[in-house]
Structure formats: C-alpha cells, structure tokens
C-alpha cells in the first residue's frame, strides 16, 4: 500500500487541490518518516519542524480561501549550500556552522512565493567538493550516497521529501539522482539564478531539482528559473515553459557510444536495453560519437574548476585551512598555482567545443547516454564524473530518468541531454521516456 510519503509532489498537489489531503497531515507524515529514517540515513543537516508546520498551516488556509500558489503545501529539502532565511547555511564547513545572512537565495524565495514549504537543509559534501558526506545510501548502506548533492538525492529517494534542490558543478545533481533511482533535472546554465548559492565555480555552478517523477522535477525546475538581476548570467533569459500536455511525438535521439564504452558492463547493458525499448516504442535512435575527445572535456573542466574554486575560497583558506576536507584542500592548493594563461585558454576552448556540439545536436531532439558510468561505488568516493561533466562544461540541460536496477540491485540512470534553452522539448522527451520504462521501486536498506 502506498503511504503519504510515497506520493510524488504532483500527486500530493492534486490531492490538496481536491481537498482530500491536508498540507499539515502530509507534512506530519514526512516528519514521521524523517524521525524514523534519519538516525540511519543522515540526509539532513537541519529539519525546520516549527517553520514547516507554520507554513503547512498557512498552506491549509490558502487552499481554504482559494489563494493557494502553484506549489502550495509541498515540502522541499534545500541543499546546505543554498541560503535560507530561517536556517544557517554551512556548506559542510564547520566554521560556517552558524552562518546566516538572513535572506533566502533567489531560488528559495521563488519556491516560497509559489507556496512550497522549506522543510530543512540537506547534506552536501564540503563546498560541493569530492570528499563524501556522512549521508548513507538507502539502497545499500555500504555504498556511496554520492555527492555533492548527497542529502538531496537520498531525502527524495528515501521518501523523506518529495522534492529537493541540489547543485551541479561537475555531476552533482545527475549522478546522485541516478545512483538513488530518482529523477534529476538541471536546466540550461543561466536559467536559474545562483544568487544566494555558496559558490564553487562561477563558470559551472548550476541549481537543479530532484524528484520521483519527471513532472515533479520539471515543475520545480521551472519554478526556480527566470531572470534575476542579482545573477547576470540570467539577465537576458526568461523562464522556460512547461509542456502544455503529454507529448506523444517520439523523440529523435543520438546514442553517444563514447559513454557506453567507458561504462561498466552492467550499466552499458541496462542502458542499451532501455534504449532498445525506446526504439521499439518509436523513438528515432542513431548512434554517434563525440566530435572531441572526452578527455578534453574533463581537462577543460579541471582547469577552470580548480582555479575558480581556489579563488573563491582564498580568504577562507587563509583563516580556516585546518577545517578543509583533504580532497578539496588538495584541489584548492593546486588550483592556486595554475597559470592564468591555462585558465583563459580553457575558457576559450570551452566555447569552441560548445560550437562543435551545437552543430551535432542540430536536427535531433537530444542525446541519450548513461547518467553515470557505474552503479553507486563504495563509500570512499562520490563516484566518477565522466558521464555528467561534458554537459556541465557546455551548460546544457539534462535529465536523469531511472532505467531499472543493475545486477547488484542498485539503480541505473538514463541521461537525456537537450538543446540549450529548449527545456520544454527536453521535458517532453523525458516524460515520453519515463512512461515507457518501468517504475522504480523504493529503496529498502537499513
């Protein structure tokens, strides 16, 4: 039997609008789930029970007087790198334990304005770096919860929240979402304001949404998108439109062989099976290869990321060096020594590579590939960035959609990459794909 925590956000909204579900009852069910699971899973930094209950009561009144916003009554977990007015934002860094400038990030303010409830802050790796967080994987407690948006993905997968916001600087929305068997969505770079996000790399940082359906991730991704004068990367861009209805037009996709070849046999096999199924359902699938070496994407990413991260953290490093996690500190130290000419060259090459890929995606709806090159590995790592980083380098929109369980009973994700600023079509594709693949069961570890 499906309990209230199993509802997707869209299902919960439908019930609230039909007056068969109270926002207070829904919140209480999620809080009970958190009480039950958190001692084992450790997905949350802080749960704002009082603030959430106040908001749920307001939501109940809003439904009663017909002033409810489009996300009214839906509790959301927010990655602890994103500012929230009522709660500190530490970014996994002890010296920031009580840091709170007292205002919401733009994305959080937009969720509140639409009626969503900020349930609390979920775990992140330190400053979105590569050192694993304390969060456990609900599919297998001995496997990584990934990162950097570990708490976001786990809270959604383990039915503690229907939606969470994450951030991606390499693969930190798509990879953890894939490992947890949920849906992750990163809109095009520039769609979602980063104002109020503790930065790691201004060239790459993106905010995305995680949920247990394409409709949920799309709904919340759209809610946080749109221009914001406090993030100039968004200045010329409007919000994207959600599809008007269900798309029955099968997509035309390029299956990128490079990523099948670097994936484990298990992942490559599951993804190939899923793509075959899509083809049998009418999708136009053609095989293709990247026009530039994958290694070049990874090198560009490293050259830009570690320099920007070192510059961003320079003042903190001078004051609090002993508090940095070892993997992040190594990157920051080396990033501070990279010649400026290498950084600028990487930025120039990045734009050139983007032009090559733009030519490749013309004439199709998108790319399809594994979301991650293997299922969740052990807890010493957050997992490799190979399948996600190219799209972060380009700043293109991506979905991961669950594609079943692999041999070890761990989720495998199918990644869909869309044309830049064509989120509407990408959402249609992801929805079409989701409806042709099997639904993902709930995790059961611990």
């Amino acid at each position, binding site marked *: 039997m499906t309990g209230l925590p199993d509802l997707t956000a869209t299902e919960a909204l439908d019930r609230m609008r039909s007056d068969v579900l109270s926002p207070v009852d829904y919140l209480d069910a999620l809080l009970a789930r958190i009480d039950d699971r958190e001692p084992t899973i450790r997905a949350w930094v802080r749960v704002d029970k009082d603030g959430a209950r106040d908001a749920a009561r307001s939501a109940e009144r809003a439904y009663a007087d017909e002033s409810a916003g489009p996300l009214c009554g839906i509790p959301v977990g927010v990655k602890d790198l994103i500012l929230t007015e009522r709660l500190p934002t530490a970014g996994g860094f002890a010296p920031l334990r009580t840091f709170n400038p007292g205002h919401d990030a733009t994305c959080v303010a937009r969720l509140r304005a639409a009626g969503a409830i900020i349930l609390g802050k979920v775990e992140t790796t330190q400053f979105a770096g590569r050192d694993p967080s304390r969060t456990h994987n609900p599919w297998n407690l001995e496997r990584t919860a990934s990162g950097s948006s570990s708490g976001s993905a786990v809270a959604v997968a383990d039915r503690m929240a229907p939606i969470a916001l994450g951030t991606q600087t390499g693969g930190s929305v798509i990879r953890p979402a894939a490992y947890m068997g949920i849906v992750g969505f990163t809109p095009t770079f520039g769609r979602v304001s980063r104002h109020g996000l503790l930065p790691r790399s201004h060239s790459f940082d993106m905010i995305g949404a995680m949920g247990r359906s394409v409709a949920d991730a799309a709904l919340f991704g759209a809610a946080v998108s749109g221009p914001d004068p406090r993030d100039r990367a968004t200045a010329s861009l409007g919000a994207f439109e959600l599809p008007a209805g269900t798309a029955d037009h099968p997509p035309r996709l390029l299956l990128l062989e490079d990523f099948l070849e670097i994936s484990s046999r298990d992942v490559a096999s599951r993804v190939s099976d899923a793509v075959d199924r899509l083809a049998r359902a009418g999708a136009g699938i053609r095989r293709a290869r990247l026009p530039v070496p994958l290694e070049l994407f990874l090198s560009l990413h*490293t050259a830009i990321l570690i320099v920007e991260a070192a510059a961003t953290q320079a003042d903190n490093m001078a004051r609090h060096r002993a508090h940095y996690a070892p993997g992040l500190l*190594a990157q920051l130290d080396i990033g*501070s020594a990279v*010649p400026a000419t*290498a950084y600028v060259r990487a930025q120039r090459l990045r*734009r050139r590579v983007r032009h090559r890929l733009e030519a490749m995606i013309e004439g199709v709806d998108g790319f399809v590939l594994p979301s991650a090159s293997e299922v969740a590995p052990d807890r010493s790592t957050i997992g490799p960035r190979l399948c996600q980083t190219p799209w972060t380098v380009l700043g293109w929109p991506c979905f991961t959609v669950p594609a079943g369980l692999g041999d070890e009973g761990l989720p495998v994700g199918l990644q869909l990459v869309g044309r830049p600023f064509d989120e509407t079509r990408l959402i249609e594709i992801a929805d079409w794909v989701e409806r042709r693949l099997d639904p993902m069961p709930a995790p059961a570890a611990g």
Partner: protein
Amino acid sequence: MSPEDVAAELRRALLAGLGEERVAELASEIDATAEQLAMVLGEPVALDDEDPDFMGPPARGA
C-alpha cells in the same frame, strides 16, 4: 608543454607557498592535474577562432 614541464611549473609555484612536505603529499595529484593542463595547453586556438564572449553563458537566449 609536456605534462612533466607543467608538473614542474606547478611544483615550483607551490613550493614557495606551501613548502616541500605539502608538495610531496600532493605529488600524485599534481601529476594528474598536469596531464590535464598539458592537454588544454596543447590544444591550438587560432586568433581567428576566437569568440569575444568566451566566458559568457551559452549563446542562445530569449
């Protein structure tokens, strides 16, 4: 520049600020980063291939 040249340059820059012990700790990470930087530095970008807004977001927008 070869990866070895880049690694040597990184070590020189790091020695001044962090000392020999830390540079020794970072040895394998320096080498891995140097491989990637050498790839970036070895990829030609002609002046007529330049995009004046190479640091901005993707080109299209509303």
